[in-house]
């Protein structure tokens, strides 16, 4: 049972979390502004309400096709797609938050106190950011509750179950693939490689579901009614008896898994770090490179070593993968399809922003002692944010060239577009006048409006670049498009200087 004392501890921890994030934010000037920000962020009820209201219009947009539908099949299909959102957000947010809690050491001060701090407080703490996400599904659920009450109740239960599944799988990702500090060396490298492979395979499972959903919705409407796996099962609400049994089965599986894994995560967060013992003298490699390159390498090393952060870092791949697979399976990739995927990849690449920024959350004070200019720091972050979209875009160009050799001309996009989107986003976040470096306090869930604004800015730039490509003959369209891209990138570079 949740007691008043538990809530009090959760509030203290939440406030602490807000404080630690805000004090590193260079855009916050002075003690007064910091206090104001903490006070605002610590008003949990107000914040949850504000977030819920913010997500509501997007929930309405997602659910609109349902309001005009008169067929159960369409309602079921919309419900299925709506149910995916809380699942994805809960999974992502749980992994990201756990990694942050771990690196910020929020639980440290409680360890020595005679307080019964348990795993349920961890879930409560994370749920503060998760509960407003229910707004994404709220319009669809309310619509169903009004017009199809019984099915509406099932839909609401599925959304909640989706949260629990996402939250639990987020814990699984963190506890099984998360960073556990070893002592370094080649065995840790092997572990890292295995963890990354495991993580990609694990995330692939989710996309296999997604792929299955698309195939089933498109080709076998009847099958949808008898779906037994979430999120397809959330669309099978018009067969209430069977669907209820499916729901119970889901809960019967996920609740024990949740109880098991939440304790593992909790133990992991509380675990004392291993202290290395003196080993044999070993050779070490001294090297001095450019500051930007060194900072980029540092980010990559840290991200790949903290595999829990990889979920956020690899998110562009995870978003684009199902669509690419489907296109390849249909007729292969055309020049325009490859270009479109590169544009999408570059735009969604900014989703890795949270991981890229949080990698320095524990060490920003150390970086501040070094003669590091804001410009250099931002440039390294632009490269860190671009590297995955660039690498995946190059693979796409290779794949597209295999199907249609002319696709090779899209190579410059693979470099230019991710650099442009990353530059726009980071120039915006680091646009404060001061020269000091820091970590802008930014998260997709809490700063959703800011995220939408950034996507619009990227969209405007990409729109200008894409216009000649999609409207003029290739001979003129492609060079003109590259010229515009180069000019945009040059402008963003000048702005940083």
């Amino acid at each position, binding site marked *: 049972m949740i007691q008043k004392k538990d809530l009090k501890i959760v509030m203290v921890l939440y406030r602490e979390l807000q404080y630690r994030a805000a004090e590193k934010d260079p855009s916050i000037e002075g003690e007064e502004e910091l206090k104001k920000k903490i006070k605002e962020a610590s008003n949990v009820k107000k914040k949850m309400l504000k977030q819920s209201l913010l997500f509501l219009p997007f929930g309405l947009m997602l659910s609109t096709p349902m309001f005009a539908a008169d067929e159960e099949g369409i309602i079921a299909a919309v419900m299925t797609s709506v149910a995916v959102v809380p699942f994805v957000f809960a999974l992502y947010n749980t992994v990201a938050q756990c990694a942050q809690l771990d690196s910020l050491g929020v639980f440290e001060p409680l360890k020595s106190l005679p307080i019964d701090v348990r795993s349920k407080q961890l879930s409560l703490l994370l749920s503060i950011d998760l509960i407003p996400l229910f707004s994404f599904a709220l319009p669809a659920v309310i619509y169903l509750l009004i017009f199809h009450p019984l099915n509406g109740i099932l839909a609401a239960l599925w959304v909640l179950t989706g949260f629990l599944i996402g939250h639990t799988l987020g814990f699984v990702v963190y506890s099984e693939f998360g960073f556990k500090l070893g002592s370094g060396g080649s065995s840790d490298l092997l572990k890292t490689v295995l963890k990354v492979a495991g993580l990609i395979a694990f995330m692939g499972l989710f996309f296999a579901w997604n792929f299955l959903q698309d195939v089933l919705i498109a080709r076998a409407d009847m099958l949808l009614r008898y779906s037994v796996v979430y999120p397809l099962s959330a669309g099978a609400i018009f067969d209430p008896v069977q669907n209820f049994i499916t729901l119970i089965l889901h809960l019967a599986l996920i609740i024990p898994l949740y109880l098991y894994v939440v304790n593992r995560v909790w133990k992991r967060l509380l675990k004392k770090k291993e202290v290395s013992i003196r080993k044999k003298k070993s050779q070490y490699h001294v090297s001095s490179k450019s500051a930007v390159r060194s900072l980029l390498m*540092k980010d990559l090393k840290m991200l790949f070593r903290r595999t829990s952060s990889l979920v956020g870092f690899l998110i562009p791949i995870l978003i684009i993968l199902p669509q690419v697979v489907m296109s390849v399976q249909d007729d292969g990739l055309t020049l325009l399809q490859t270009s479109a995927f590169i544009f999408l990849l570059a735009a969604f690449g900014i989703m890795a922003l949270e991981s890229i920024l949080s990698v320095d959350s524990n060490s920003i004070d150390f970086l501040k002692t070094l003669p590091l200019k804001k410009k250099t720091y931002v440039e390294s972050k632009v490269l860190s944010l671009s590297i995955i979209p660039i690498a995946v875009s190059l693979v796409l160009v290779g794949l597209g060239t295999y199907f249609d050799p002319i696709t090779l001309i899209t190579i410059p996009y693979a470099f230019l577009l991710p650099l442009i989107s990353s530059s726009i986003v980071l120039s915006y976040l680091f646009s404060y006048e001061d020269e000091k470096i820091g970590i802008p306090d930014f998260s997709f869930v809490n700063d959703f409006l800011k995220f939408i604004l950034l996507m619009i800015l990227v969209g405007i730039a990409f729109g200008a670049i894409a216009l000649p490509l999609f409207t003029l003959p290739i001979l003129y369209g492609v060079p003109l498009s590259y010229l515009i891209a180069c000019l945009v990138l040059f402008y963003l570079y000048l702005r940083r200087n």
Partner: protein
Amino acid sequence: MISVKNLTKYYGEKAAVKDLSFEVKEGEIYGLLGPNGSGKTTTMRILSGIIEPSSGRAEVQGLNVKEHPVEVKKKVGFIPENPKTFESLTTIELFNLIGSIRGIEEKKLRKKLNRLVKAFELEEYMNQYVGSLSFGTKQKVSIISAILHDPEVIIMDEAMNGLDPKMAKIFREILFNLKNKGKSMIFSTHVLPLAEMVCDRVGMIAGGQLITEGTVEDLKEKSHEKDLEDVFLKLTKSETEVSRVVNALRGSM
């Protein structure tokens, strides 16, 4: 050379440092002493270019810290009280990162590192994650990180924390060596016998203000006390308070 004139730093309405003035000459180790919360760390963070002063002037090697924080950081090596760095980098990766950001030439970096790593007996830990090191070993890493670029000015906030007696002695020798090379140093510690041993002059601050400064001998003479600890307690007006608390504790424990 360090010059501090009428330095003030406010956190909200509270002044952490108030109208503070002092100078540290070339080849001098200046002890900054004071009770907890007296403004030592704030002063040292300002001088390291990490935070800006609210008013007043602080100069390092003739550079105003407010106007040229990056240039100041190039000339300063700062050892913080609680070193927090990249825990998932190995020790050598961290040193390479610092070398790159500070623009140290590879050959020079190798030479310097080899010498310091040997002196601090860190050879065994170079390929291990910084996060897996003990507190004392992390402190050694922090010291090397601060002096790797041969800074003109070294600012140390409780730099001897966690060092065993052998390492503390080696570090003291390194400090004297750097002093002989003309480096200016600020040394903050609560271990007053250590300050007596290391510092050429000391400045005592309380409530963000300088209450006295001079050589250890001068201060002893002026306050008619035998050691620096008694001078400190007397000047920070802690003597009576200490006696009262000690007596109260005797009665209650």
